[in-house]
């Protein structure tokens, strides 16, 4: 492994006299006025594997997407191999020598690997036929020691094979700097090891590699230097991995901003939601549930922290009743509801705020009044028998719009036209009704601005103070810490650990998030 000794060494590089492979200075980027990056720094030397670590939403992927021309930075400078660069498209970035492999591969499923490569090359240069593309792929694959079969259709490939095809494609396009966005998240243990060994070899051949990851193990085992990001800023720029230990990395990732005020349980209420040994088979490219279990008491918020894709979506689907588990049990107020349909769970007091509000929460093309009434029409709240009293629906909606201060809304406005925060308020107005006893909230403030976030948190706090129970599933650690009475960490479809908020330390959370029990 290479020998960069201190953060200052980030400005140097391993091949003396050669400018850094990639340098980013003072990068700022905001989405809809919300800053995602602020004054972010990054410097990559030729011949190294450089890890970027940080929590979800820390800006790792955004920073690399800026470098790769997916997003345009609002401010800051970029050089690639010493030359000023500001790629306006991934194509331009690759032409300048930087290629990124995203978490979601950019391959056409119905094409073969060779056809995909030919598609990207766009019939320029020497490669003009599928046969030539195939030959080029085989040659490149042999050169870098990565097995890829150009004649296979992408749809038939395993995830690992797709990833290898994508890497070879990017390298064939001329990339000498390879950015891998959480490449091991979708791989098995062995596949991950093989990929990381390959990455080391590639660096040994003089390429430069950026590895975006959550896992300390990968940083310690395969990377030369590490850059740590938090809230869109670089908190540690290019420090040698050898000089850091896991606790230090965890602390820098999570920050000092831990428990904002202690929240002792107001009262140890009865268990209202008990989940035991819940297992769901993993879908392709997904994570299942592996015997997850926990208790949720009335009057408390149980925060489930965890890196996205560790079974959170599956857990919410299972609790909602959209997916039936292979084994395990869900008890709602003592009653076994493991296999009952969503409607009966709602009657028993369960309410859900899904992470994607327009996926299983709201209907985009419905009027606001219709969305607000959605779960109550079946109970006869808007007309007995089969009739529907639209007038009463609109009136009820107008009251909810006032009560929740939903801006830009009248009962007949299409819900899809609202801003994210106001659409979320529609969902809250429906779910936080008088009948709620258990609230499952998955990333309830994702994509919302400060004010709307505050609104959501206050609404949850009030509901819990009034005696409801809340399971808060979130990849946003500050949110979990701000609301929870107890914190559990989810990893690979199970609970990796659980503590009272008073006992939560950055080291503990950081280690569990990074996959260490």
């Amino acid at each position, binding site marked *: 492994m290479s020998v960069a000794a201190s953060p200052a060494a980030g400005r140097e590089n391993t091949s003396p006299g050669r400018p850094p492979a990639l340098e980013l200075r003072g990068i700022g980027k905001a989405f809809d006025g919300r800053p995602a990056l602020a004054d972010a720094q990054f410097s990559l030397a030729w011949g190294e594997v450089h890890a970027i670590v940080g929590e979800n939403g820390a800006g790792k992927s955004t920073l690399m997407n800026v470098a790769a021309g997916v997003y345009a930075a609002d401010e800051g400078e970029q050089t690639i191999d010493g030359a000023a660069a500001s790629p306006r498209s991934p194509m331009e970035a690759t032409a300048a020598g930087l290629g990124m492999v995203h978490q979601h591969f950019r391959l056409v499923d119905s094409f073969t690997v060779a056809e995909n490569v030919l598609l990207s090359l766009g019939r320029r240069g020497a490669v003009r036929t599928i046969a030539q593309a195939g030959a080029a792929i085989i040659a490149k694959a042999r050169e870098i020691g990565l097995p890829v079969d150009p004649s296979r259709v992408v749809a038939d490939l395993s995830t690992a094979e797709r990833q290898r095809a994508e890497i070879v494609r990017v390298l064939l396009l001329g990339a000498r700097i390879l950015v891998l966005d959480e490449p091991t998240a979708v791989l098995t243990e062995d596949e991950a090891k093989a990929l990381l060994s390959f990455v080391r070899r590639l660096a040994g051949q003089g390429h430069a590699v950026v590895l975006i990851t959550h896992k300390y193990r990968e940083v310690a085992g395969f990377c030369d230097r590490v850059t740590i990001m938090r809230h869109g800023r670089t908190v540690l720029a290019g420090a040698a991995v050898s000089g850091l230990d896991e606790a230090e990395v965890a602390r820098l990732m999570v920050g000092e901003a831990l428990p904002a005020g202690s929240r002792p349980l107001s009262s140890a209420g009865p268990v209202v939601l008990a989940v035991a040994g819940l297992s769901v088979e993993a879908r392709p490219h997904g994570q299942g549930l592996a015997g997850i279990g926990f208790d949720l008491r009335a009057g408390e918020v149980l925060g489930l922290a965890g890196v996205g894709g560790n079974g959170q979506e599956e857990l919410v689907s299972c609790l909602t009743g959209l997916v039936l588990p292979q084994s395990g049990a869900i008890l709602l107020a003592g009653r076994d509801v493991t296999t009952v349909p969503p*409607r009966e769970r709602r009657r028993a007091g369960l309410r859900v705020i899904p992470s994607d509000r327009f*996926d299983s929460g709201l*209907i*985009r093309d*419905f009027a606001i009044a*219709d969305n607000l009434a959605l*779960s109550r029409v*079946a109970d006869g709240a808007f007309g007995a028998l089969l009739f*529907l009293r639209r007038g009463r629906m609109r009136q009820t909606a107008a009251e909810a719009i006032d009560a929740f201060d939903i801006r830009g809304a009248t009962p007949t406005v299409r819900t899809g036209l609202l801003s994210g925060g106001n659409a979320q308020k529609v969902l809250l107005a429906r779910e936080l009704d008088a009948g709620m006893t258990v609230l499952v909230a998955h990333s309830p403030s994702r994509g919302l601005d400060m004010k709307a976030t505050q609104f959501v948190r206050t609404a949850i706090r009030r509901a819990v103070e009034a005696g409801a129970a809340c399971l808060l599933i979130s990849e946003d650690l500050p949110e979990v810490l701000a609301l929870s009475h107890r914190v559990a960490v989810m990893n690979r479809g199970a609970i990796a650990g659980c503590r009272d908020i008073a006992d939560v330390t950055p080291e503990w959370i950081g280690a569990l998030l990074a996959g260490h029990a």
Partner: protein
Amino acid sequence: MLDAAFLVRRQAPGLLLSGLCYAGGLAFGLAVSAVLLVQAGVPAAALVDEFLIATFLTSDGLAQTVTAALPLVLVGLASAVAMRVRFWNIGVEGQLWLGAVASTWIGLGGTGPDALRLPAMLLLSAAIGAAWIAIPLVLKLRFGVSEVISTLLLGSVAFLLVQHLLFGVWRDPATGFPVTAAFLEAARFPSLGWGQLHGGLFVVGIVAVLVWFMLGHTRAGFYADAVGLNPKAARAAGLPATATVVGLVLLSGALSGLAGMTIVAGTEHRLNQSVGSGYLFSAIVIAYLAGARPFWVVVVALALGAVFTAGSVLKVFYGISEGMIVLVQGTVLISILMAQFFGTYSLSRPGRGEAS
């Protein structure tokens, strides 16, 4: 490098824009159709005569238009209710054929007293239409079989069954042609004394009002929209999603079956090999142009009835072929659909810094 322009979905297409697009598409389609017809030998001056005056402004023409529109309203509604729950009923014709077969069985003197003959035909044709669509419905819900394929193929099966009957037990004993004998008097809708118009008008009127009321003012209609627009959210909110789909799809089949009954009991008074042909295409056209809304289904069905009437006039007096009439319908439809595209999307060129 290709300089890409992106299609951007309009957030809230205004009524004016939608109206203009619709009218523009219609005008363009009619203009192209006019050119086609003139090319085929219809004098330009006769077009206005035949299309506008003969179909809407003369008593006989109007009666003929309304008569032709009756089954069109039913198949249009059939297509529309299924569309609401995103079930693509491409087997409207099959259900219609079976409805016609059921009606014929009673109409030719099957069991029962005369007074109950028409009501029995109504009920049985609806029931058998629903039963016929139940097959693809079960296949879809149980095994995930695409209804586009299964309903379409079952349509052909239904037509083969009709041929089997017409060339077999139901062949007209008097002539030997593959048509049935004429229905009993009690199995025909009474004439209203205005052209060919018959008592089926009341049946279709009542059915249309019921469907309109159901979709707009009952829980079933609300569920249907929710399930059609976002089945996952509908289920999560506790709606009976599967029951809703089952109910509306069976209704779709029943309406198609009823259309078959309306044709044989209203105008043909016998079953032959052509009573059901062309209705599949018309049903989809009507439901699509009407946006699956019952009121507009009736309006579009009347317009299409006029086209049929004008078409038959053109066929008889100017020797225009059946294919030409279908071509004209297709031209108008495609024009309106393309125009709707511009009402739904706008073109934009990507500027710098437009992320996510």
